[in-house]
Structure formats: C-alpha cells, structure tokens
C-alpha cells in the first residue's frame, strides 16, 4: 500500500479528531499537497457536522464575541486603518486606536492609584527562582521600571525593566493557564504609542527575561495564538504602567 493509500485510510479518523502523534502529523502534512484527500476529508467532515443538531444560539454568547472583536482582536496593534461604521456610515476610529485608548484608560486608572501596586517581587510569585531573584535585584536598582499587570485588583504578573535594558516578567499564581494553542504575549508601549512585541510567554508562563533598550511608557499583556504574532490579533489581558 502506498503512503497516499495509507494516509487516505486515516481520513475518517482525522475527521473525528481521533488521531494523535505521528499519524496526525503525517495526515496533516499530506493534506497540504493532496487534493484527492482534501476532497475526501470534506466528505467526512460533512458527516461529522451532521452528527450535531442545530440549537438556538447561546444567550449572551454574542456579547462576549462582540466584546472580543471590539477590543482589537482583529486589528493589529499600532496599525491605523480606517474602518467604516456601518450604523453611522462614517469613518470611525480604528480598533488599533481604540485599543490604545483602552490601554490609556487602564493606565489612567493605574496612575490614579486604584490598582497599581509596587511591592516586593517575592510576594505571591511562582516560577524559576533564579529569574525571580534576579528580578527582585533588578527592581531595587536605581531608575528601574516596576509595574504590575492587574486584573480585578489582583496582580497576574509583574514586569521589571532596568535602566540598562534588562527586563523580567514574573507571573503570579493568579495568571490563568491558557489552552495549548494560545499564548500570552508581552508588548512594549513606547512614549510615542508604538506597540512592539516584547516576546512570547507561552500558555503557562514562567518567570522570563527580555531585553529592551528604548524608551517605555508601559507594557501590555495579550492572549494570542500559540507561537505569538508580530502584530496583535488577540485580546488585551492587562496593561501595566510604572508605579
């Protein structure tokens, strides 16, 4: 039996998402180049979809989705594109601008002293002890930037950046793990509102280091697809600003 025939026989199992490991990767790889198998897979996928009855859309489900896409899920950070408001028939601010505005609003709250806390980095922290110890030392260095990512008043991570560009992100126990196909991603917000990727933290972040030698007005944490993105496509989890 040829490789094609072997993989073709696995398509019913692939359509049910019941393959794992090498077989899964082999079928996925094969589907990139085999139109015959792609067509056959479409047949089996149609079968699986018929095993699911139609039901009324979940109550409040749309609000969650609208909120997610309305908070910049589709628009890359820092990219200003004009979007026409269908209700008003006029251009409205891009979601990138909206996102930056949202970040600024959160920052304003933080500056107002409602949320931001600067405290010992050893408080409630999890992760690699060597990085945490280095982060604590960095936090006490002259001119260091220290901020919290706060959600509902609780810190989910702390960020430290020394004057000479050594950065640390230290998650707390309150940082929820994500699905395997998602990741947290750090973003640096510069004083001229440029939003630049600081790096990928993974779906279950550990204490991490980064380097940044430019100016900084704040940091943001977003949820993205695994592997990270160059421009944000996910939702903002929290914004940190300097205490």
């Amino acid at each position, binding site marked *: 039996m040829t490789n094609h025939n072997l993989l073709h026989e696995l398509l019913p199992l692939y359509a049910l998402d019941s393959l794992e490991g090498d077989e899964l990767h082999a079928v996925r790889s094969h589907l990139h180049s085999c139109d015959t198998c792609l067509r056959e897979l479409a047949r089996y996928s149609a079968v699986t979809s018929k095993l699911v009855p139609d039901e009324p*859309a979940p109550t409040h489900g749309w609000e969650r989705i609208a909120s997610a896409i309305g908070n910049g899920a589709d628009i890359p950070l820092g990219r200003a594109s004009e979007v026409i408001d269908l209700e008003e028939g006029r251009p409205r601010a891009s979601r990138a601008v909206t996102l930056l505005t949202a970040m600024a609003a959160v920052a304003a709250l933080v500056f107002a002293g409602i949320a931001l806390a600067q405290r010992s980095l050893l408080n409630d922290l999890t992760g690699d002890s060597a990085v945490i110890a280095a982060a604590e030392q960095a936090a006490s260095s002259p001119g260091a930037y220290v901020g919290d990512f706060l959600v509902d008043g609780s810190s989910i991570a702390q960020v430290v950046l020394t004057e000479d560009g050594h950065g640390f992100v230290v998650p707390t126990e309150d940082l929820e793990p994500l699905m395997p196909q998602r990741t947290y991603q750090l973003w640096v917000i510069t004083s001229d509102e440029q939003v630049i990727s600081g790096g990928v933290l993974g779906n279950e972040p550990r204490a991490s280091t980064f380097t940044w030698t430019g100016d900084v007005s704040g940091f943001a944490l977003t949820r993205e697809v695994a592997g990270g993105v160059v421009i944000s496509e996910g939702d903002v989890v929290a914004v940190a600003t300097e205490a």
Partner: protein
Amino acid sequence: MQSARLQSGHYGNVAYLTSPVHVSAAWSMSDSNTPDALLAERVANRDQFALEALFEQYGGAVKAVALRVLRNEALADDVVQDTFVGFWNAPEKYDAGRGSLRTFLLTIAHRRAVDIVRSEVARARREEKPPDPDHYDVADEVWTRNLAEQVRNALDELAEGEREAISLAYFSGLSYVEVAKRLGEPEGTVKSRIRSGMKKLAASLSGATA
C-alpha cells in the same frame, strides 16, 4: 525600530523572536456565489453584522458540540468565543468549495474542544467537577432526537461496535487508541470500525443537507 527579546525562564537559553503564524491554506475563499461564501466575504470586509448572523445561525450547534465534548459550560463558552473570533480574524481560511460554513465552524470548534480535553489543565478542571452521568443520559437522548431523521436512520444502520467507536471518538474527544483502551479492544479493530462506520455514514448522508 528597536526590538525586544523575551527569553525562556532559564538563563542561557536562546531567545526567540515572535513570528507571524502561518496556518494551512487548506481552506481558502472561493466560489463566491454561495450564501456561505458571501457571508464569509462580508466577515472578511469586517462586517460585524455578518458575524452576528453566523453566530445566530450556527452558534447553538458550535456550543452544543463543544459542550458535548467538554461537558463543562465555561470551557464550552470559551470554545464558542474562540471559534467565532478566530473566524473573524482569518475568514480566508474558509473555502466555500470544500463545504458549508457550518461544517467549517464545527470542525474548528470540535478540534479546539478536543485539544482542551487532551490538555492537563482541562483534565484537572473536569475532575474537580465531574459531569452528572444521569444528566448526560438525558442529554444524549435529546441530542439524538434533535438530529435529522436521515442522520438517525444512518446511525441506526451502523453495527453497534461502529456506532460506539465513532461516538466515543467524536463526542468524548478520544483518540482511537484511547477508544480501544476504553473498550478493551485491539487498536486495529477500533480503527477498522471507525473507518467502516464513517464510510457507511458518508455513503448514506452524501447529498443530505447539513
């Protein structure tokens, strides 16, 4: 422009820069004459009303399959959100020539639900609050009753072993290896049953509208 690098939790590891995610182009927009393709095109044009219409039409089925696999309302709601937001972000992955939008969205939702089921995090959360078996007996009955008659008939025509293996794989999110363990059958036997059952269903249901 300056760049930042984030390293792993250990000193000395090589830092990796973020990079764009390239997803398989298996689904690409084409055949723009179908209603599904038009809706996808409107979503691609950032039309929230089109996405809301899709949610109203298919959101129930998407939630149903996620809930059936995950048996956890909160996780199922996450899958629903991820499915529609994911489609909003990348509508070009849908190819109207390869199936309905309903099939596409359900495929995405099921895959995400299975990923969660197979993750340690979800396993722990599900163990914290195991599903009520009586509730799911009733839910299974309602589920079957709500299927189109043609689908119910097609399922009835399967051998018991085929139906059981397909049901465990699809609705419990189990790999065929896990199904084999669950049933105490050789992996090859389960593989064959799933294959033959799916082929029968495909033959019975080809042409039936989803």
